[in-house]
């Protein structure tokens, strides 16, 4: 009599305990796994860049830092890398489109973790950080310089520092003051009149400028945020304390981000990016030149003499697999732009490749509505999120900035 009764009450107790346990787990095991994959503590150590033998040479990084902030590195002495990549603003400029010597058609990208990118610019038209750094230097709308002038400038201002890192500068006595294959008609004519060996010498100095700037930029890494502290506590089973504790709204936002709203599909990994290109139906800005994204960048990166397969790469060709195996055509490249990292995004409106949205609310509303693309096919499907859900997503995104 007593024995079966106690069995039943034990069973009842066990059932209750089970029900209690299943009552309201905050996150499923699958969700916990996803959250852990986003946390900064899983960011691997920065890999060596074998295409840039100076990438981890401190003197190169120091020279690169000098060049990064030097307005002398422009046609009229007014623009440096840091004009748009502002050190106190996450290395971006808060403008819808960057303004250098002229007005560009793209939003300045922030630099945290930039050395981890396989592709550079919104459309991936460069394939290494050092090749990227060279592009604004000669862009007429950005620093508007030319490589012959940069070589003369380096010799005059930083000759000794340069030679200590890269070896002797070439003889520049017969090199025109202004010459470049990409410059004005006079600059192009001056470039074409130079012997091939001299062009090669100047290109080598120019590539080294990019390698020094890249060495500096490798030190710019993402910082820990409230989300990371929350995620670490969640992974270790500790109760998040202080600002690591999420509000119910932030928890809902996180659940939507990794669940129903599908944000994590592209914004994945510790940097919240898949490093790939997608058409998300963001409309072009009226009045700006035609911009078709990745589809036009493919030919540009292939034609770049400073790309991984070019003669200015250090190390062997095995580092060039991204370029070698890139998607070269197909409808998916039309108006496709790089997935940006979301770390720090709340602190740097406006958003998208041409600053189309001025708030995160507008960004989330865009993805919820998912309008069709003006060209190509948007990969985004309507989510029809409620006001509460959209606000929760924005609340969660802010935890990546605090």
């Amino acid at each position, binding site marked *: *009599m007593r024995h*079966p*009764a106690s*069995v*039943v009450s034990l*069973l009842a107790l066990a059932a209750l305990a089970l029900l209690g346990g299943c009552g309201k787990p905050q996150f499923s095991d699958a969700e916990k796994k996803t959250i852990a994959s986003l946390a900064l503590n899983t960011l691997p150590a920065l890999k060596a860049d074998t295409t840039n033998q100076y990438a981890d040479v401190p003197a190169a990084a120091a020279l690169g830092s000098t060049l990064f902030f030097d307005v002398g590195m422009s046609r009229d002495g007014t623009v440096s890398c840091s004009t748009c990549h502002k050190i106190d603003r996450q290395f971006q400029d808060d403008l819808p489109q960057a303004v250098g010597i002229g007005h560009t058609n793209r939003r300045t990208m922030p630099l945290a973790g930039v050395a981890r990118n396989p592709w550079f610019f919104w459309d991936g038209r460069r394939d290494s950080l050092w090749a990227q750094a060279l592009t604004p230097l000669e862009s007429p709308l950005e620093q508007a310089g030319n490589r012959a002038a940069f070589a003369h400038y380096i010799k005059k201002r930083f000759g000794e520092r340069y030679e200590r890192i890269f070896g002797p500068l070439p003889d520049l006595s017969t090199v025109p003051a202004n010459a470049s294959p990409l410059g004005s008609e006079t600059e192009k004519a001056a470039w074409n009149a130079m012997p091939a060996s001299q062009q090669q010498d100047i290109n080598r100095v120019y590539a080294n400028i990019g390698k020094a700037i890249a060495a500096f930029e490798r030190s710019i890494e993402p910082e820990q945020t409230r989300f990371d502290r929350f995620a670490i506590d969640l992974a270790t089973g500790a109760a998040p304390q202080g600002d690591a504790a999420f509000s119910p709204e932030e928890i809902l936002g996180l659940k939507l981000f990794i669940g129903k709203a599908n944000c994590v*599909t*592209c914004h*994945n*990994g510790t940097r919240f990016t*898949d*490093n*790939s*290109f*997608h058409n998300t139906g963001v409309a072009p800005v009226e009045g700006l030149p035609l911009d078709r994204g990745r589809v036009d960048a493919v030919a540009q990166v292939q034609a770049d003499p400073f790309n991984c397969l070019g003669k200015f790469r250090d190390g062997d060709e095995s580092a060039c*697999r*991204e370029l*070698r*195996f*890139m*998607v*070269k055509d*197909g409808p*998916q490249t039309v108006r496709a732009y790089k997935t940006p990292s979301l770390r720090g995004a709340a602190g740097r409106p406006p958003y998208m490749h041409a600053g189309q949205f001025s708030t995160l609310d507008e960004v989330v509303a865009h993805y919820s509505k998912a309008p069709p693309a003006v060209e190509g*096919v948007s*990969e985004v499907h309507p989510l029809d999120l409620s006001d509460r859900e959209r606000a929760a997503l924005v609340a969660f995104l802010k935890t990546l900035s605090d």
Partner: protein
Amino acid sequence: MASIWRYILAGLGLAALLVGIVAAVYLTLPHQASGPDTSRSKKTANGLFVASFEPERGVIRQGELQSWLLTLKTAAGAPVEGAAITVSGGMPQHDHGLPTSPQATDYLGGGRYRIDGVKFTMSGWWQLRFAISATAGSDSVVFNVVL
């Protein structure tokens, strides 16, 4: 009284047994209905070859360029040499193709071909299609990879 308890206990025991059996069946059955066929070895569409597809280093790492091995045998088990292979694919549920253009880069002998440049940028259901052309004829095979 005693017999009632006995019945209750027997009932509970039976219920527990039933739950156990259902759970065991559920856990051991292959979950065909919940996802695509992810077998790594299969016959090609027209049965010309038997194809196997494995990551060269054994593990799949999301977001990294990796090389895989495609092994081709005839139905009789002989290695298929000198095959021309083209690779395509994508994510059926997202209507997009592959983020890279994988290629057959090396023949490693024994019917093994290195497929380099494979990258899975997101979790979910991926498909890789191989169009294979060899002396025995042309055939194709689709492998599903779920991350």
